[in-house]
């Protein structure tokens, strides 16, 4: 059952994600509207997008505290995800053992950053004003995923051998069953369900900012309207 649901979620996630990318890619850009000063070459635009994605350049200009919290959250999430690779492969290269400590620290930092982001959303009147229930719930979902992960690591350990067997064989033997024998295993199933919910809402929510940034005309266009005529696809003459 769990296997089937996991597959179903993955299908919706991938299909939704691809659908949104296709939608953005196929929407026409009638005019050149980069926020200037903007790069005058394609290479420059790639660098601009890289700086946005890797360093959150614009956010840094806007708000240093928010940048620090947002950046900490995104980077630690990446580190935590990297640590998860070991649950999907039978054997890991030996140096991955060294990575454990980084992954663990990142887990705490991630939950801490999320808690502060949540506090910010509630405490600053301007940010509270613009927030919907959904904005709070998404943060809570991340906190739930991160919190349950930490709990499994340090308090209620699930049967990690069984989980790893299930995960590594998902592709070949969907029957590999999870046995629920202790509170840790319940926690794991909860963790898994929350991740599934997250994957389900990604294509249909603001979480699509992860690919939308690459399609934002104010950031991805070259500032060369005089040098090269830009054609409006729905008004060509």
């Amino acid at each position: 059952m769990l296997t089937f649901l996991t597959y179903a979620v993955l299908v919706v996630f991938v299909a939704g994600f691809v659908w949104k990318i296709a939608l953005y890619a196929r929407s026409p850009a009638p005019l050149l509207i980069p926020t200037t000063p903007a790069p005058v070459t394609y290479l420059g635009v790639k660098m601009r997008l890289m700086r946005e994605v890797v360093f959150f350049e614009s956010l840094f200009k806007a708000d240093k505290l928010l940048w620090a919290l947002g950046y900490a959250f995104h980077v630690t999430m990446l580190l935590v995800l990297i640590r998860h690779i070991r649950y999907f492969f039978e054997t890991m290269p030996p140096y991955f053992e060294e990575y454990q400590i980084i992954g663990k620290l990142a887990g705490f930092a991630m939950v801490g950053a999320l808690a502060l982001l949540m506090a910010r959303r509630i405490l600053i009147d301007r940010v509270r004003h613009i927030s919907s229930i959904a904005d709070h719930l998404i943060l809570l979902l991340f906190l739930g995923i991160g919190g349950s992960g930490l709990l499994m690591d340090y308090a209620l350990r699930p049967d990690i051998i069984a989980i790893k067997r299930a995960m590594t064989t998902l592709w070949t033997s969907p029957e590999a069953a999870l046995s629920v024998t202790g509170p840790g295993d319940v926690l794991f199933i909860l963790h898994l369900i929350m991740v599934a919910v997250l994957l389900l809402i990604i294509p249909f929510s603001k979480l699509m900012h992860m690919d939308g940034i690459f399609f934002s005309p104010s950031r991805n266009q070259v500032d060369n309207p005089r040098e090269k005529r830009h054609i409006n696809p729905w008004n060509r003459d």
Partner: protein
Amino acid sequence: MAHDHEVPELLDDIKTPALKPGSMGHLAPYPATEKHMKPLGFPDARVPDWEKRAVEKMGEMLKKYRSLQVYMDICVKCGACTDKCHYFLGTGDPNNMPVQRAELMRSVYRRYFTVGGRMFPGLVKARDFDEETLKQWFTYYHQCSQCRRCSVFCPYGIDTAEISMAAREIMDAIGVGHKYTAEIVNKVHDIGNNLGIPKPALSGTLQFLEDDMLENTGHEIKLPLDQEGAEVLLITPSADFFSEPHIQSLMGYAKVFHQAGISYTISSYASEAANFGMFIGSFEQKKKIAKRVAEQARALKVKRIVVGECGHAWRVAYSFWNTLNGPFDYLDPRYPVPQHICEFTHDLMQKGALTFDKEANDAYVVTMHDSCNVARASRMGSHPGGQFTIPRDLIRATCNHFVDMDEDTIHEKTLCCGGGGGLLTDELMDLRIKGAMPRVTALKRVMDEHKVNFLALICAICKAQFNKILPMYGIPMDTVGGVHQLVSNAIQLGTNKGIV
């Protein structure tokens, strides 16, 4: 008039205000009437099934504008933009925070175009397009000057200007228009310029200015009109022909052409650089207005087009003309099309064709206000940021005393004058006064600290707005002037003539 309005007290620095919900909810512009809507192809009154029609129009726009589709989807409501809009800083109204202004449309988008909003409207703050929503749209999408300051700071570059333009186009499509902008677009189509100056009046004014310059300088400086075969077609905002201090810059351009020995002409048919088609968000209107220029460039057989001091006009000219009415392959390929008057003068200066006497401007300590559309939606010269350095180079070449305002209020972070985006109308005076507050705060500081007494501008709207607003803050009207006004004062006529 000035006494009817409350003018905010200036503090030492720009402070983020506490939220004052609804404080600007009363201030909507005058609606356009049948007389102005019909000729533009918009319904002459609100259409019967306007709720449905607006949503359909939004669907059409989403398919035509990637910006709108992406910007509707990806805002994470991080709040980075919430303290960046000059109208929010001046009013404290939360609907003037860029994200909240966009939410007025996003909430409708979610209701009709997303799974979440169809199924759980309460959860994601989705709302129907109804009377109350339309009222808020009409009010707050006319409290955005489309200056793009928010888009600089947004981690995804979400540009509220795109959203407010789309909102205005959707409202026009259901017959709910803005009188001031609709009226002006009509005037361009009917007469050729925003001010509605017919050819005889224009020609009389130019004649008068020529006489004036002859008397003051002893040189026969021409302001030619409709002269076929001239080298350059000068397209400038019509305010340059009739308003103070704009007219001073016009004389500056004329002196530059005269001194460089380059023939040029103004066109009575295309006697307007401004393009209010952009303010109402209509691609078709933008194109139709700009077409007058392309037609005149052919008809008058010029080789180059130079654009005068005007912010949004420069955006349309620089960024859009080539798409709208290009290619300009019938013009001289050695020069960019179009060229900004500052680029033009700067070029000549570098070639040694112009000589300046800086002492002529010694009475002034000058600062420069970067106009939003020039700063964040265009370029000058060949390098990014030339729009900041080229006008400043001209000021430094013509003045001994120049100082910049606080770095968070210039260049790409410049603050709007408060009158852009089609809001330069008297019924919105309260908004214009409050929206100017952040800029005036930064200006007042350099006035106090460095004795600045001249605010150099390259935008007709900025000039008109500050001319009216600065006196309300106790700053003399003659503080306001154009960059080419300084050029006009300093240029040495009759020397080095003809090096080109």
